[in-house]
C-alpha cells in the first residue's frame, strides 16, 4: 500500500517534469526565444515601408530609429520620420513596458513642441500602414499567455506553432498564431485574429540574417490585411549594433534634436 502511494507520487512528479501542458510548452518556447535575443544592448536601423491599397496604389515612408535594450523591462526606442516630406523630422520616443502603459512622446518640429501622448492607441495603424503600434513594439514574454499547438514544417523549415493571447490593455487582437523557426527561435509567420475572433492579418518574415553571430533579424516583412485587401511591405535596410547608446540618447532632450 505504502509502495503504491510512493509510486503514485513519483508518477505525479515525473508527469510534472516531463509531460508539460500545452500552455507550459508554449511559454517555454517564448522564454527560450526571449533568452536567445538578450544582450544586443543597442541597435540602429533604417527602414522603408511601402503601403499598398486594394487597387495596387502604392505610397512609401522612410524612417530610421534607435533602440536601447532595457533588462527586465521593455526597450526604449526613438523613431525619426524622413518621408513623406511633410513629416520629416517628426520624432517618436517610446519607453515600452510589458503590462504597464508605455510612456510615449512625440516631437513636432514645426511647432518645436514635445507632446506626451497616450499609449492607448496600440491597435491603431503605424503611419497609415497595416502594422499596428502593438505589432512593432518591443516583444516581452509577459505580454502574452501562450499555448503550444504542434510541431510542423513551413517552407521546408521545422517550426513550432504557438498561439499567444495578449494580456496587455488596448490590444486589437484576441489571438495570434505564430510559426516559430526551431533553429532561430524567430517567427516566420504570424496570424492576427481581431476582437471578433476572425482572421484579420497575416505577417511573414523573410531573408533572415544573423548579426553579431547571435541575433537573427528579418530583412523584409510582409503584412497582408485579409479584411481590407491592403498590404504593407517593411524593408529593413540596415541594422547596426554596438553604437554605445545610453539612456541619455532616449530622453526629451535628445528627442528635440533627433535628426
Amino acid at each position, binding site marked *: 500500500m505504502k509502495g503504491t502511494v510512493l509510486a503514485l507520487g513519483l508518477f505525479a512528479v515525473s508527469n510534472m517534469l516531463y509531460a508539460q501542458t500545452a500552455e507550459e510548452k508554449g511559454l517555454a518556447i517564448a522564454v527560450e526565444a526571449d533568452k536567445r535575443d538578450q544582450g544586443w544592448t543597442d541597435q540602429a536601423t533604417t527602414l522603408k515601408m511601402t503601403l499598398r491599397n486594394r487597387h495596387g496604389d502604392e505610397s512609401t515612408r522612410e524612417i530610421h530609429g534607435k533602440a536601447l535594450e532595457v533588462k527586465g523591462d521593455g526597450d526604449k526606442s526613438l523613431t525619426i520620420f524622413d518621408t513623406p516630406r511633410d513629416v520629416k523630422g517628426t520624432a517618436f520616443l517610446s519607453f515600452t513596458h510589458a503590462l504597464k502603459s508605455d*510612456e510615449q512622446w512625440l516631437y513636432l518640429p514645426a511647432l518645436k513642441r*514635445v507632446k506626451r501622448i*497616450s499609449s*492607448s492607441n496600440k491597435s491603431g495603424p503605424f503611419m497609415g500602414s497595416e502594422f499596428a503600434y502593438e505589432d512593432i513594439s518591443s516583444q516581452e514574454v509577459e505580454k502574452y499567455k501562450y499555448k503550444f499547438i504542434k510541431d510542423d514544417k513551413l517552407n521546408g523549415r521545422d517550426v513550432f506553432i504557438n498561439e499567444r493571447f495578449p494580456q496587455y490593455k488596448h490590444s486589437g487582437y484576441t489571438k495570434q498564431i505564430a510559426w516559430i523557426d526551431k533553429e532561430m527561435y524567430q517567427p516566420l509567420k504570424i496570424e492576427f485574429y481581431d476582437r471578433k475572433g476572425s482572421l484579420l492579418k497575416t505577417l511573414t518574415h523573410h531573408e533572415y540574417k544573423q548579426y553579431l553571430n547571435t541575433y537573427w533579424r528579418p530583412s523584409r516583412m510582409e503584412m497582408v490585411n485579409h479584411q481590407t485587401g491592403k498590404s504593407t511591405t517593411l524593408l529593413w535596410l540596415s541594422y547596426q549594433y554596438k553604437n554605445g547608446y545610453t539612456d541619455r540618447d532616449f530622453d526629451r532632450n535628445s528627442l528635440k534634436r533627433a*535628426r
Partner: protein
Amino acid sequence: MKSLLYIIALSFSSLVMSSEWSGHVALEYRQFTTDALLAEQHDQIVSVSVQPEWFHEWDAGKQSFTFVPFVRWDQYDDERSHTDIRELTWLKAAEDWELRAGIRKVFWGVTESQHLVDIINQTDFVENTDGEDKLGQPMLNLALIRDWGTLDLFVLPYFRQRTFPGTEGRLRTTLVVDTDQATYQSDDEEKHVDYALRWQHTLGEWDVGVSHFNGTSRDPQFNPGFDSSGNPVLVPYYALIHQTGLDLQATLDEWLWKLEVIRRSGEAESYLATTGGFEYTFYGVMESSADIGLVMEYLYDDRGTAATTPFQDDLMLGLRFTLNDEASSEALIGIIDDQDSDARMLNIEASRRFGNHWKLNLEGRWFNHIPANDSLYSLRNDDYIQLELVYYF
C-alpha cells in the same frame, strides 16, 4: 599650419558629407466671408510663403548648425509681406548638458486653446491670429540634464516686436498699429537683456514644467498716437515684467489632463491666468482605424473684463478627428465660448497629404456676437476660410 589646413579640410569634407536642404513652399488663398469694415481692406487675398532649412552636423552628431529663413509675400498687405530668420543656431550636446547659441524658437506648455506659459518667442501675428507662428529669438541657452530633471537657462539679448497687419490687411484693429513708434519701459528699449529659466521633469504619468521669465513683455499695450502723415494710429508699449509659469500634464490611458498657470507682475497690477482641462480620445471608433478626441479647456484671467486677452472666463470645446489613413487626414473643430457674453469663436483646421510632397490645409475662423467691449470686436467682420497648398522638399 598643417594641422589647421587639416582641420579646415576635415570640416569642409564633413560639411559636404552631412549637410542637407529641406523646407517648404506654400500658396495660400484667404476668402473673407463677410464684407470688410474698412474701405481699404480686401475680401480675397493670395499669399505665398517660402521656408527653406539648411542643416549641417558634425562631431558624430554632437554639434550641428541650422539655418531657417522665412519669406512671405502678401497680395495687398505690406506688413504681412515680411521676412524673418526663424532659426540660425549652433548646438553642442554633451552627456549632461546642451548649449545652443543663435536665433531659435522654443515652445513651453501643454494646452491647446492658448499658450500662456510659452513666453520666449514673440508672436508673428501677421501670420496667424492663433499665436502659434513665432519670430526667431536671439538667445544663449544652456540646458543642464540631471537625474532631477532638465534645467534650461536663457539669456535673451535682443527683443523682437510683435508684427501687426498694415492698412490693407484684415484681422486687425480699426486703427493700424504703428510699430515704428513702439515705446518701452526700459531705457535700453529692444536691447534690454531678458533672462529666463525652466525646470522640466517627467515623473511616471506626470510631465511637469516650472519657469520664470524676467524682461520685456511679449504682449504690448497700446497708446493712441499719430503717424507721420497725421493719421491716428495705435502705438505699442512694451513693459518690463516678471512671469512665473507652471505647466502640468497627466497622461492616464485615454485621458490627458492639462494645466497651465501664470502669475505676471510689473508696472501694472499683477495677475493670474490659467488654462486647464482634458483631452479624451476614443481610439478606433466603430471598428475603424480612426480616432476621435474630445478636448475641453477652461480659460481664466483674474483681471476679468480688464484683461488684455479676450479669454478671461471662456470655455473651449474641441473635436479632433484623426483618420490614421495613408494621407494622414485630420481635422480639429473648436469653439471658444465667452461665459460672460454671447461672444463665440469657431475654428476649423483640417489637412491631408497628396503623394510624398504635397499637403492641403483648410482653415476657417468665425467670430460671432462679439460685444463692443471685447478685444476681438474689431475682428467681428473678419470671418474667413483659407486653403493652403504646400509643397515640401
